[in-house]
């Protein structure tokens, strides 16, 4: 019995590898407009996060602040692979996800500064923001708590017979939480349209994947439940999008959940106050220089004949958006003291 199971595993893995090559072919076929859009979306996240880091340094942002720099291709590629009815939920490293969902930079930044103009009126902060309008369901501070929640959102899509998925993002560290497997089991049992996007950025705070996980292929973590998994180059937005499309097609055709393990990397510390002594500067520099998701698209755009001036103009546009967001985040007032007591219960 055990033998036949493991040979089935090998076959599935082989099939997945084959899948990867197909994706690479498709990836190079992206249109110039699509590439430009990806470039802009990723750049917005990068510049936003740099600004947030800077404002944190000036004492304008408090508490925990987890930057997404380096991982931009994951959310931008995934967002391009789903439809409008789909929902998104993630952890506390959420600024990039919100911007990718179309939430406004100013509202996100004002939440970081704890002002009334923030998405949660200043009561949630960096880790807890939401937008029903943009189908973004948080922003959750407890590692892996968003996983059953996302599974429940997928349950609601199925219950309401919607053609939609819930993109449920989680970290490599979160992948070791028990509730993830409770979720995988229910999602597979009930064929829920849930795409679990494991953002493997190699570290959970200071713990590298191999120090925290027995069996480091996170893509295979659903195998016991019959959930297909795929390893994806999370630094390549086109590879991400292609994988996302495959998972979306699977989940929306009634076949149940899908796991995508995004191989990615965060350039900054875990949060602002992390001196990052658990990895070498060399490692960080190598990722930056050789695998940067934005450089990658910039190179493709150059190949496609987009001029440096055009890219610079886009850079200026993006900077303007971020500057406006930062100004708003500082001019928006602090919440009125009456807000202390609002939003505890909905009036029945």
């Amino acid at each position: 019995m055990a033998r036949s199971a493991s040979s089935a595993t090998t076959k599935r893995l082989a099939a997945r590898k084959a899948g990867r090559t197909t994706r690479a072919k498709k990836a190079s076929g992206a249109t110039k407009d699509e590439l430009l859009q990806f470039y802009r979306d990723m750049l917005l996240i990068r510049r936003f996060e740099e600004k947030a880091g800077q404002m944190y340094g000036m004492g304008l942002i408090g508490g925990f602040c987890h930057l997404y720099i380096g991982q931009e291709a994951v959310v931008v590629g995934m967002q391009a692979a789903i439809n409008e009815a789909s929902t998104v939920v993630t952890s506390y490293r959420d600024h990039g996800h919100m911007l990718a969902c179309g939430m406004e930079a100013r509202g996100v930044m004002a939440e970081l500064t704890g002002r009334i103009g923030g998405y949660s009126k200043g009561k949630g902060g960096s880790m807890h923001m939401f937008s029903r309008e943009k189908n973004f369901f948080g922003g959750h501070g407890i590692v892996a708590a968003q996983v059953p929640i996302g599974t429940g959102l997928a349950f609601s899509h199925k219950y309401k017979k919607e053609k939609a998925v819930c993109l449920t993002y989680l970290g490599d560290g979160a992948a070791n939480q028990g509730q993830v497997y409770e979720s995988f089991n229910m999602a597979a049992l009930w064929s829920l349209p849930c795409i679990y996007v494991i953002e493997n950025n190699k570290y959970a705070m200071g713990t590298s994947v191999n120090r925290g996980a027995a069996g480091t292929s996170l893509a295979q973590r659903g195998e016991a439940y019959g959930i297909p998994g795929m390893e994806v180059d999370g630094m390549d937005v086109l590879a991400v999008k292609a994988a996302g499309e495959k998972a979306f097609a699977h989940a929306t055709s009634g076949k149940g959940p899908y796991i995508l393990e995004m191989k990615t990397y965060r350039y900054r510390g875990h949060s602002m106050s992390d001196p990052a002594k658990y990895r070498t500067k060399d490692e960080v520099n190598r990722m930056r220089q050789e695998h940067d998701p934005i450089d990658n698209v910039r190179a493709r755009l150059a190949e496609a004949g987009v001029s440096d001036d055009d890219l610079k103009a886009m850079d200026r546009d993006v900077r303007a958006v971020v500057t406006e967001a930062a100004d708003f985040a500082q001019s928006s007032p602090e919440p009125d003291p009456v807000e202390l007591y609002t939003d505890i219960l909905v009036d029945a």
Partner: protein
Amino acid sequence: MSIQILMPALSPTMTEGKLAKWMKAEGDVVAPGDVIAEIETDKATMEVEAVDEGTLGRILIAEGTENVAVNTPIAILLEDGEDAGAIDAGAAPAAATPSEAPAPAAEAAPDRPAAPAVAVMDVDEEKFFADTQTQTVRDALRDAMAEEMRRDEMVYVMGEEVAEYQGAYKVTQGLLQEFGDSRVIDTPITEHGFAGLGVGAAFGALKPVVEFMTFNFAMQAMDHIINSAAKTLYMSGGQMGCPIVFRGPNGAASRVAAQHSQDYTSWYAHCPGLKVVAPWSAADAKGLLKAAIRDPNPVIVLENEVLYGQSFEVPTDPDFTVPIGKAKIVRAGADVTITAFSIMVGKALEAAEALAAEGIEAEVIDLRTIRPLDVATIVESVKKTNRIVSVEEGWPTCGMGSEIAALVMEHAFDDLDAPVKRIAGEDVPMPYAANLEKLALPQVDTIVAAAKSVCYRG
């Protein structure tokens, strides 16, 4: 325009640090992300990264300088095409430096508004008692769910053994047959997972009724009940209501020992963002569960296994609900107030009969709702009786009795003729042995003795 680089704060508590080392020299070109300096705080050494691109025009703070305050300019960055002359020309500090950073909070204590009371719906319960039938608590709870499922398609029931098995305690009997397996869902044994899944479904506009086989097992789901269900509305500035019911038997069962026999009422009572009810009669069980399902907030419905088989008169009108937040005086009396909830209401009523035989008329208040607690009804009663005994099955420390004692002191201190008396379960894990279990739980004679003592009798 030249840009000032400021001494950054690297943690929420940092106010100053040592500029340990410059990694770039004047005249060096820097790109965003380049490490330009190292800073030491009492906790760690951290790198300062460039945010903008340009040329390091001038270093303002020499390396080795201690106690550099956060936000002090430490260097000037020149942008494309600028030369160092721009610095002396006094170019305005720029984009990167917001001119006036408003000092975040921490000044004089802000005006403190008053906390508003939770709105309680006004329902005329009495009129529904014109038409009643005799029902067990179990059937009343089942009917409550069935009626609400008929009324609203978004309501569904999930939990262990709720569907095919018809409920571990048969509370969901017949629901699968009437509503089918897309609305009555057997879950795996996975409390943490299905509680979180229910919260997600509620965010997705469904109205889940999540059954815990007993509340003992909900400890595994506590994180989702509190962190996800109760707090998200607040943390989202009002966007993310979570209309969900968590229900199941709570409190001491019979002879199942410590892990299966515990009253969690005060645990949930502690948490803002939740409503908590603990009915005794079948009518209240039905009316409160229906109100809970209709409520747009997370509601904890604490049932009691021992009560499931007890019968009461229950209104038949499907519009009958009991408002959350209202206690009920189940026996009027002028000499002493006894508060109780869930199974202890029955014990309190028995005690009141015994007291009456000795000439003491007790007023028994069934709290029914634990959060928000109906303080007014308790205080009114104490103003009349001038004495109060609180009864609960749970542990005494930080229990409901502690809360009631504090509230009575705050609202009716001058009306008290005797200290508040708390009757609670013994401060021990529930024992298995029949004799010890009996000793661990409040009994009728303990309540009688307590009431007599506050009346200075016996």
